[in-house]
């Protein structure tokens, strides 16, 4: 009996302890499930695998539920945010906002169909969210419901003014996708006119504009026509590229530019032969007998001069990197003034032949080129007024040039040349070593300055003919926007040191300035016409007293085929 009583007491005690323990356990459990951010997380995680979902929490104040949802949303816990949002009840305004919020959550989860449903409900319930239609438009776009996307973006612009530029870009781009290119171009054009660019859509608009034309042009079957038009479009891509070179659109534009350049190169290589005929007529105020650079004789006489030239170019790609280029030229120069022998002797027939091998490489810098060249030239002067000695000069020249992309402004070219010069007067024959550096600098989108610094070391058969010539030439072509006109200005300075011509050693200084207007009559550069004026002033102080001034006004027409 005592044992049974003891057992009863023990069981009673155990019951009390159990109740106590259970109470402690329940309290501690309640404490751990007090609504904090962890509560819905843990509960929802369990609920994902259990049909018994979170119990209704009507007792929770609305603000607490909203706060939970906001906390979860800000922490990126979108599943749990959605669970909490599903529990929120309230008036129409709150319901509308919750639908908008759910749309945002679905959109972040890339469930765009569900996002659309909720944004649409929010729209019907007139949710007061500034980006509702923008978000709806993006979701429609992601779901490929393009016309509805346009409608939503229009509403975003008209009703909410939210991300107007981005919305406009979307509309333009959707028009473009749907081949409504006129509308697309209109949007892009107007975007490009906006002074501020908060959504950074100007450059994509520039790029997509080029893309519209690119898509059209790439369908052209005639290769020549297609390349010519691609070259036009290239300027659009260059325009887009220069806006921001590091952006996505900038890089895409760069890719397109490279593609077009490759197409052009390929086409050029495919078309081995090109011919060009050229006629130049000019008024020369002071004819200089300088047909061959060897002997300089000023006539102080003016004359009209005609020069007719025929050129042929040959180009052949030997491999991906190597190419061969050849050219030949035959020209005839004729002066109308026939009284002075110096003038008549300036009449000449010139024949030139050149070859070069070019190798693209990335050895030193990207897009570098090696060039190995050989040039031959033979000039026959009219000697009828003189004696029966045939007047001629001829030379050959070996050259090596390296073109590098060192500066961002443009390519730099360094060249070394050896020239052997032969003249009908043996004393005028010489050997020349020439070093030159050329730098192209892009000043604006339509202007590129080309500066050349050159030194020529001349060693004559007679040492008295030795000289060093330093030259600085600047050529600046400016493409006049919207036309096919190019304004080319040129400024050249040279100093000649007749080193050993003692005691007549002196410094011959010359300045040369010219301005020329070139017009491409036909788009594909088949017909070219040039008008210009050239002025030369020589400030020679040596005993030969070669001081002179010279004006030339010229017109030049060319046809290339």
């Amino acid at each position: 009996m005592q044992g049974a009583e003891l057992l009863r007491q023990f069981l009673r005690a155990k019951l009390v302890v159990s109740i106590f323990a259970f109470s402690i356990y329940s309290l501690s459990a309640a404490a751990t499930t007090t609504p904090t951010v962890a509560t819905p997380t843990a509960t929802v995680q369990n609920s994902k695998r259990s049909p018994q979902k979170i119990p209704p929490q009507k007792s929770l104040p609305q603000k607490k539920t909203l706060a939970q949802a906001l906390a979860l949303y800000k922490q990126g816990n979108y599943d749990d945010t959605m669970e909490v949002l599903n529990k929120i009840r309230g008036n129409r305004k709150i319901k509308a906002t919750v639908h908008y919020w759910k749309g945002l959550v679905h959109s972040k989860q890339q469930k765009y169909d569900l996002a659309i449903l909720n944004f649409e409900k929010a729209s019907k319930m007139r949710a007061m969210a500034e980006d509702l239609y923008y978000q709806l438009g993006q979701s429609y776009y992601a779901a490929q419901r393009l016309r509805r996307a346009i409608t939503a973006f229009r509403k975003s612009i008209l009703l909410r003014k939210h991300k107007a530029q981005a919305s406009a870009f979307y509309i333009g781009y959707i028009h473009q996708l749907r081949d409504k290119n006129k509308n697309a171009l209109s949007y892009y054009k107007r975007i490009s006119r906006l002074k501020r660019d908060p959504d950074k859509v100007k450059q994509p608009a520039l790029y997509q504009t080029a893309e519209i034309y690119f898509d059209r042009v790439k369908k052209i079957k005639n290769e020549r026509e297609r390349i010519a038009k691609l070259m036009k479009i290239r300027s659009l891509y260059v325009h887009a590229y220069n806006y921001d070179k590091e952006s996505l659109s900038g890089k895409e534009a760069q890719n397109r530019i490279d593609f077009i350049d490759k197409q052009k190169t390929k086409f050029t290589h495919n078309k081995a032969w090109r011919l060009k005929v050229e006629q130049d007529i000019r008024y020369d105020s002071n004819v200089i007998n300088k047909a061959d650079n060897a002997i300089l004789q000023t006539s102080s006489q003016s004359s009209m001069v005609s020069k007719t030239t025929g050129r042929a170019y040959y180009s052949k790609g030997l491999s991906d990197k190597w190419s061969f280029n050849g050219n030949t030229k035959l020209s005839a120069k004729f002066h109308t003034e026939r009284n002075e022998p110096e003038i008549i002797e300036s009449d000449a027939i010139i024949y030139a032949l050149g070859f070069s091998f070019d190798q693209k490489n990335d050895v030193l810098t990207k897009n570098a080129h090696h060039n190995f060249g050989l040039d031959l030239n033979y000039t026959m002067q009219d000697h009828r007024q003189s004696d029966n000695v045939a007047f001629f000069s001829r030379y050959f020249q070996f050259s090596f040039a390296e073109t590098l992309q060192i500066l961002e402004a443009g390519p730099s070219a360094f060249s070394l040349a050896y020239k052997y010069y032969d003249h009908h007067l043996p004393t005028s024959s010489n050997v020349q070593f020439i070093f030159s550096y050329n730098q192209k600098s892009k000043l604006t989108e339509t202007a590129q300055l080309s500066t050349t610094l050159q030194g020529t070391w001349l060693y004559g058969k007679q040492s008295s003919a030795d000289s060093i010539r330093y030259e600085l030439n600047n050529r600046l072509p400016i493409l006049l926007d919207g036309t096919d006109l190019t304004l080319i200005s040129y400024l050249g300075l040279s100093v000649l040191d007749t080193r050993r011509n003692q005691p007549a050693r002196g410094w011959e200084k010359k300045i040369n300035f010219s301005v020329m207007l070139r017009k491409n009559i036909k788009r594909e550069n088949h017909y070219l016409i040039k008008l210009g004026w050239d002025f030369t002033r020589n400030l020679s102080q040596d005993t030969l007293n070669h001081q002179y001034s010279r004006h030339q006004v010229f017109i030049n027409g060319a046809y290339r085929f």
Partner: protein
Amino acid sequence: MANTLRWGALLLFFGLLTTFTALAEKAKGYATTVIIMRGKATRSGNTDKIMVPLKVQERIKEGAIIATGPRSFVKLLFTDNSQMNLGPNSKMRIEHYNEKETSVLKLISGQLRAKITKDVLKEEKKRRKRVNKFYIRTKTAAMSVRGTEFLVTTPREGNNPDSLEPDRKSSTLVISFEDTIAITSFNQENRELSNQPVSEIVAVMAEKLASRNVVLVSEGDFSAVRANAEEATPAARISPVQFEALKSNKNMLQTATKQTGSREQQFISPIPPGVDPLEFASEGDAIMRALEAAIGEGAMNAVIEESKAIISQKEGSQTDETVGASEERSGDNVTTAEATVEPQDGAPLPGGYVDLKQGIYIEPRVEEGATFDPEQGVYTPNPAMQVGENGELVLPEGTVISEAGELMTNDGTRYVPPLPRADTEGVLDPTDITPRTDAPPITTGNTLESAEGALEEEEEAEFDEIASEQEDQETVNSSSDSSIIVIIDI
């Protein structure tokens, strides 16, 4: 009274018996007990390498190797209450286990998810110094953990389901679910210490994990150590969507990874090509303003305060228990991830997906239509790639992930996400049909100006609206503004 004493003595006897039995168990060197098992799993003895089938409630000693088969899973409860889940096709070794010291696990291949208890070691209390509870090493990495939950994965050989050997080119990838874990490269040390005793390995790991090149991986972040790499990658956030899915998948369930095939079911990126997703994302606080408009300013302030309190409460509970490594290395060059837009030097863009099979992070690519989530400060990859229910990666049909973490087609070219199709007329609102027009005809002098004629009146009005919204936004002379579209006569 005598009865009471008798019963008391009996209870005391059983109590002491239980205590002594437990102590005896520990004294025998048991480290852990299998509490849940799914599929097939095996273990070796602590000295021999013969693998025998594993059973639930089986106790495993220090030195044992545990391996799981395909779609299998083992949950281990260590005597210090730390939990380790060994995922499918995985293999690990308990190299050293002692509650009073730092224990060492080696993940040979596969996935290990661990939840380390936050109680401090007795040694720490005595010395008033923080000691790491666990060191985990793989073929390429060493990690130290104190009180945290994390997933570490290192691919098996050639991703071959029949192999449990580590891949020759494998990397180790760790994701922290809670608190912080320290990771560093252990490539060279593993080679040098291949036949050294565990005590030597522990000493080297301790030294390495207290060095400068340790990366701290906070909650939501990942870091990886590639084969032969000298350092772990800077920590970066993974996609919040994948993070939550992985975090919820405590039992390491694997679902069949189907590739997304039908284009009709696919979504495309909501960001058009060539634009900056940062600029095309709505502002992060738009929801705050919408809420305020719905519930009023006063209530909104209360909601904000409440949500801040919730967040700080969660963060506060976590910051108490962080890896001691950072504190032990004052002035070191420790890298931690921040939820910022600009990743730290060398860190990948945040928000990408993790391919657990290969242990590769797939960085979101802006040029491939990644969107930006301003709330989280992370990018979201193109929806062509998706995350499955259990956090697994679902790739577009006919694609694979390259070793460099790029999405490639089966023929070896870079995957190009689809653009919207212009022919989805069927699902569109028929009331919104505008006449189809073409590009301007090609005539000399024809320019974008001439395209104006095609502009619909409605669209004109829209742009008038845009223009009127812009203060000082007078249209500028086309010749003076370099951003104006160049006129082209195609």
